[in-house]
């Protein structure tokens, strides 16, 4: 009897816990699901309140087509966003792997000073130095170019990613290098052939953060990209949502938001382990 009662209580507790979990999950997922589903409505229907969220008069890609007709089009901004994000990933990985290796394995003048300098940039937000960044880019002839934006984004990633990579290299035993050096490997071959495979998880982590950072950044892109053909997705979508291209087409907004969210969600779901790792590395230290 008593056993059955306790089993019942346990069952009830479990049902309670899982209903809480499910309700909370639905609340967190709902806005995303709502936008993704509504984007597939025909334009007429997308203008009405999204009740229910799914299309009732047939699936349609009309909203994506409309989006592509605004300004220079969805595709141009998407290309800009992809270019900026991929370049930010490639360059910040290259620069951080080199610097992480340098800080981890060599002793040279001003080493500590340089390391502290790079880490301390995190204390001063770029939002407060955007104006001079704008002027520096102009001086360098990089004003209103995606390359200039990439330079800014890479610099923003450096404190986190160099910190990550230095720790990753620190964790590799020196014996491995000594053995490779005996075999006559030069510094650079050693880094690329011997060390890189060992710090690969760290590289994936910083690449993921670099991509998400660049893909989602708004203020710098808004300030530095003045020409419509250079707009990244967030800037272009905000221009559309502000009514810059005439009456606001909410169907196009849903489609644009979907295009902006889906790559982040896919990358996160695929590389979740690395994302949480990065978060913990940042959190524990």
């Amino acid at each position, binding site marked *: 009897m008593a056993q059955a009662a306790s089993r019942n209580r346990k069952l009830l507790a479990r049902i309670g816990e899982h209903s809480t979990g499910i309700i909370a999950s639905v609340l967190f997922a709902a806005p995303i699901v709502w936008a993704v589903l509504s984007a597939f409505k025909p334009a007429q229907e997308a203008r009405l309140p999204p009740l229910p969220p799914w299309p009732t008069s047939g699936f349609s890609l009309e909203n994506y087509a409309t989006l592509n007709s605004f300004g220079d089009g969805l595709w141009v901004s998407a290309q800009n966003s992809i270019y900026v994000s991929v370049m930010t990933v490639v360059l910040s990985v290259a620069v951080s792997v080199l610097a992480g290796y340098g800080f981890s394995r060599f002793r040279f003048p001003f080493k500590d000073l340089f390391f502290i300098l790079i880490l301390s940039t995190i204390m001063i937000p770029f939002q407060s130095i955007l104006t001079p960044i704008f002027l520096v880019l102009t001086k360098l002839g990089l004003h209103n170019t995606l390359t200039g934006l990439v330079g800014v984004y890479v610099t923003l990633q450096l404190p986190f990613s160099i910190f990550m990579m230095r720790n990753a290299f620190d964790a590799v035993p020196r014996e491995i290098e000594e053995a490779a050096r005996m075999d006559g490997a030069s510094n650079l071959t050693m880094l690329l052939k011997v060390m890189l495979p060992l710090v690969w998880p760290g590289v994936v982590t910083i690449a993921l953060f670099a991509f998400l950072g660049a893909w989602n950044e*708004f*203020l710098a892109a808004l300030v530095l990209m003045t020409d419509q053909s250079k707009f990244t997705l967030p800037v272009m979508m905000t221009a559309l949502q502000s009514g810059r291209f005439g009456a606001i087409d909410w169907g196009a907004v849903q489609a644009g938001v979907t295009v902006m969210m889906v790559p982040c969600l896919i990358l996160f779901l695929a590389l979740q382990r690395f994302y949480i790792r990065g978060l913990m590395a940042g959190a524990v230290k």
Partner: protein
Amino acid sequence: MTTIAAATAPLRARKLAGRRQWIGLLYVAPAVALVVVFFLIPLGMTAWMSLHNWPLMGEHFYIGLGNYVAILRDTRFWNALRFTAYYTVIVTIAIFVVAFPLALFVERPRPLTNLYRTMFFMPAVVGFASASLLWSWLLNVDSGLFSPAAYDLGLIDRKFNLLATFQPAFWSIIAMVVWKVAGFTMIILMAGLQSIPQDLQEAAVIDGAGPFARFRAITLPLMRRTLALALILSVAGSILAFDQFYIILRGGPRNQTLTAVYWIFNQSFVSFKLGYGAALSMVLLVVLVALSLVQLWLLRKPEGLD
């Protein structure tokens, strides 16, 4: 011969090793160059420009502390700063009120916990701009979700524009930010909870401590650094808030939701008063550096350790 060779070999090796160490400079050079060009120089220029009248076009000239004197009388800037502080306090409390229970919920291993964690965390990887665009649609009075849904359910007798007046607009932003950020704070708090030794809790149970007493006497004190970190990330993010207020509210209604960064943006890139914008940035920088020092103090290692 052999003795000389034997004597010089280590010396040459050491010299070579010494030269090899210098190569480290080459490895870190690109990173340092980027930080100099995109951080150090702009930082120095901010200070320099703040002492000038610096329009976008035409000559700039030195005006000493003129910009700073003007700031003292810039009531709109102080209002923006006050609003930013208000927003930071409210949103941080709201985030913690949601994130802490979530962290306690996903901390214990049980079936589906991983799935719940992922679901709660998903909005955190979506950008602030995407989230703001998404919510600006959901909050729209005619084509959005909330107002029409409440109307259809009979909760209100005519459609209510959530973004037209300060209170509902402000709380809508809070809701959106909590939705987006709570999962992130949850993960950080969860890491702190998991680092508390299980036997401490068990010992307390044996001593007859109830869940609330255990929470106060064990969980909270042992999580001080984690709490401080979560607090810092939330405060630092909120003080620099821009995207959501620009995209959803355009600083309205009636300029009541202009944040500090938004005001600097307006002065620098809408009015093109670059020197004045730089001076405003310097004020914001001082506030942020002061906060950083408080943060370092909060994050200090517990006494007796390290």
